[in-house]
């Protein structure tokens, strides 16, 4: 057992607690213009069979030629997973008959994958983390797509996806509950998107997961696992694991045994159902593909790629904490999605005084901007308030030109109407009043008009807050709160 495995949430059964053991195989489509072994386009959504080369259609005498870009992307991904890069790997044929596989076999990597063991640190609730081991990553071809609804008597096949490069990323069985599983996929997806090696678009099928689930008494021997195939939503993965674990526990507690099988998750019913049993499992007759030489590259090729690795979420988070003084939670939120991090760093770049305003900027991005985007169901990439605009708003607060309260009004204006925040503040008279004589006049008026409150405040200084509120109200929120406080203290003698 891996010592770094984080215990997960146990499930209560009739006979006591049960532990869930989960391992995942993630299929991530490699970002590449052409397919793994042919020059055909990988573009999504083309007319059926419009991106099919002679190689993809497995015409007689056609031969695969490795796409070096896909190899580069796989190595980059391996480096991003802190994994062993194998300078020599082998492509194998996985033989099976199905019309989505024109060759009659899938070219994959079986005994010698391009990437070996690595690990991913995943973020859990409450700022905790867990480490999930990576068993391997290998390159393989995607299959075509069968269309069963085009004719009453026939099925059609669209080979556009056929031969597109996939990275199969296999985790160790280090995941212990649904939350960890969801966090693992989320983190892996984030790393892939930072690296630019997979777009992570689960709706389009660019990222799919096969989830292996078994249950056992805590610390006991491993149970028989079932594999839930082809999950393309992080939430469904969580639901499927919860359901599957309970199903297995019920069977065992009723005196039954788990059959090793492949299952499918039905999102409408929220349950998994059997797809095929172990007895029906294919014998894939793997053997090295004689059309392809072993894939070999040098350590200097790997080193060169390593030197070009972008900053990954873990490193970025550490930097935000260390150099900007952000809380681990805030830093984690900002780096979770590559686009969010890019946005935040663009805001940072737009700040005139980074030392003063970085934390404030983080707060504004997380609370105001993300909050608003979430509420409106919008993506960061389509944010109506640009990073430059947000940097300007934060700058105006930081330098004391506007108060935080006014800033929220300003944010609203920029969100709905757009415009240069600094110009808006000028044009709409939103500047904070720091002119002491102007504030003093207001303070004096309020003190004079409320002698009873003055008496109360003198007796109980905490009640001075009432005066602050009144001053702010009369100044339309523009009075500098610090100046108001100082004046009140002096005038009330507290």
């Amino acid at each position, binding site marked *: 057992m891996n010592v770094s495995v984080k215990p997960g949430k146990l499930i209560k059964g009739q006979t006591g607690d049960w532990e869930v053991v989960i391992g995942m195989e993630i299929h991530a489509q490699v970002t590449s213009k052409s397919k793994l072994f042919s020059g055909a386009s990988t573009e999504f959504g083309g007319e059926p069979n419009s991106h099919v080369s002679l190689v993809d259609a497995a015409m007689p005498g056609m*031969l695969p030629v490795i796409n070096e870009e896909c190899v580069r992307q796989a190595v980059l991904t391996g480096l991003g997973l802190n994994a062993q890069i194998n300078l020599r790997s082998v492509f194998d044929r996985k033989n099976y008959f199905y019309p989505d596989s*024109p060759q009659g076999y899938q070219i994959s990597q079986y005994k010698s994958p391009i990437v070996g063991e690595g690990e991913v640190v995943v973020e859990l609730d409450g700022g905790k983390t867990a480490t999930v081991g990576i068993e391997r990553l290998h390159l393989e071809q995607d299959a075509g797509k069968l269309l069963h609804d085009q004719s009453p008597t026939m099925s059609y096949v669209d080979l556009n996806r056929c031969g597109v490069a996939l990275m199969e990323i296999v985790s160790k069985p280090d995941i212990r509950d649904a939350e960890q599983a969801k966090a693992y996929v989320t983190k892996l997806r984030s790393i892939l998107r930072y690296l630019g090696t997979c777009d992570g678009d689960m709706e389009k099928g660019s990222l799919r997961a096969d989830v292996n689930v078994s249950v056992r008494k805590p610390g006991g021997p491993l149970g028989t696992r079932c594999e839930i195939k082809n999950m393309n939503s992080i939430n469904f993965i969580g639901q499927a694991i919860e359901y599957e674990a309970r199903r297995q526990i019920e069977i065992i507690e009723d005196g039954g045994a788990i059959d090793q099988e492949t299952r499918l998750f039905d999102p409408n019913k929220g349950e998994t159902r059997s797809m095929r049993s172990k007895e029906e499992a294919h014998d894939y007759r793997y053997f090295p593909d004689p*059309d392809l030489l072993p894939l070999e590259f040098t350590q200097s090729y790997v080193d060169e790629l390593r030197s070009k690795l972008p900053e990954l979420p873990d490193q970025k988070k550490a930097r935000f904490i260390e150099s900007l003084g952000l809380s681990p939670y805030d830093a984690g939120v900002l780096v979770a999605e590559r686009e969010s991090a890019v946005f935040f760093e663009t805001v940072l770049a737009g700040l005139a005084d980074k030392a003063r305003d970085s934390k404030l900027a983080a707060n504004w991005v997380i609370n105001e901007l993300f909050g608003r985007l979430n509420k409106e169901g919008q993506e960061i990439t389509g944010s109506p308030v640009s990073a430059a605009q947000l940097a300007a708003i934060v700058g105006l607060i930081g330098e004391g030109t506007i108060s935080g309260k006014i800033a929220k009004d300003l944010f609203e204006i920029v969100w709905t109407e757009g415009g240069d925040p600094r110009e808006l503040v000028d044009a709409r008279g939103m500047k904070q009043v720091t002119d002491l004589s102007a504030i003093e006049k207001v303070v004096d008026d309020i003190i004079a008009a409320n002698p009873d409150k003055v008496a109360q405040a003198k007796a109980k200084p905490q009640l001075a807050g009432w005066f602050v509120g009144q001053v702010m109200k009369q100044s339309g929120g523009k009075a500098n709160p610090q100046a108001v406080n100082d004046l009140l203290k002096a005038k009330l003698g507290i």
Partner: protein
Amino acid sequence: MTDLTSMTIAEAKAGLANKSFTSLELTDAHLAAIEAARSLNAFVLETPDQARAMARAVDARIAKGEGGPLAGIPLGIKDLFATKDVRTTACSKILGNFVPPYESTVTSQLWRDGAVMLGKLNNDEFAMGSSNETSCFGPVVNPWRREGSNTTLVPGGSSGGSASAVAALLCMGATATDTGGSIRQPAAFTATVGVKPTYGRCSRWGIVAFASSLDQAGPIARTTRDAAILMRSMAGHDPKDTTSVDRDVPDYEAAIGKSVKGLKIGIPKEYRLDGMPVEIEKLWTEGAAWLKAAGAELVEVSLPHTKYALPAYYIVAPAEASSNLARYDGVRYGLRVPGRSIGELYESTRAEGFGDEVRRRVMIGTYVLSAGYYDAYYLRAQKVRTLIKKDFEDCFAKGVSAILTPATPSAAFGVGEKGGADPVEMYLNDIFTVTVNMAGLPGIAVPAGKDAQGLPLGLQLIGRPFDEETLFSLGEVLEQAAGRFTPPKWW
């Protein structure tokens, strides 16, 4: 104009160059010969219109002084090579009337160099066979007959159409492929010269695959020089075939007539089989003597793992074939026998489309790759393969330049005579040739004599990787000593 078909490629090149005749005349003479020889069943598709169009075009190029190394030379193409817009079937029913929209690299290089295509040549179905009897177009007939006999003999296989057509003067040369002896064995059965180049020397792109790690294209011609001329056009690196090797293609013809003095020639003792016909034994000794007379030094060598080569070959080749032939499923091209389910469509199509021998090898291959058997069969065979390769490496490391062996354990046999009850009887034909494919080495079969019944016999020379030139030099010595053999025309 019968003389036009009996020339060598070298002679025809000279005749075309000095305008003694045109390519069109040369082509027409061969088209007529093909038409008159249909009883040999060497061609499965004649392409006279295309041949004449190519000949006219190349005549125009020759007139402008722009001919290539093969300008105007009419050739036959084994039906395993994809030819653009021309039916390509691998002589299997399962490909039906498949017309590829692409041209194989090897044939496109021949056309680039000015050759003319006469048509597609018969072969064993998917190149699986040693007698050309497994073709869906029926067996090819060997132009050679036993003296005083009318018995129809096989030309060997799988390149039986190529060998028969070249021997019968139907084409000046032919493309062929060799996975376990499919070029060299038919060459030996027909008194032609067949070259199996080093693995990786010729591109496999566009050639219907049998066993990818063993398949290699090569020429069959009437002389060693002609084979050398064809080789230069067929060979070369192709980025579309990862296993093809990026090396310059030498002028193989320059090796013809080059002295073999001082070359060390190995005679492998393990090739001396029990029960080998005396005539083969004698031929071998005679061949060694000719090489010695030319100045070569003969040494006995040992290739200790030879006896394991054939069984290992009949695991590796079917294993790869079972996977390579999975694409013939009735879904996208070729034969489709409809079914009520996809499983039924697959089963009916493949049962109907594949002949017995292909089905046998697909089943053997599927079996040896199956879970629980892989280690005992496929993996073990691959280990044997490594040992066979090492046998040759050790031999070459001792300064041996080439190895001389018989090409086949017998002369051509009758149609239906072998393998009917026991397929292994047929497989034994490849006993001297499979080692070369297993080791990826170049080999050449050269006619060297006749048996008591007047049937041709051949010798094989095995060379170091990418040293086809030495094989051409040595082959020429044997050819000069043995003379050339032409079958009496009876068809």
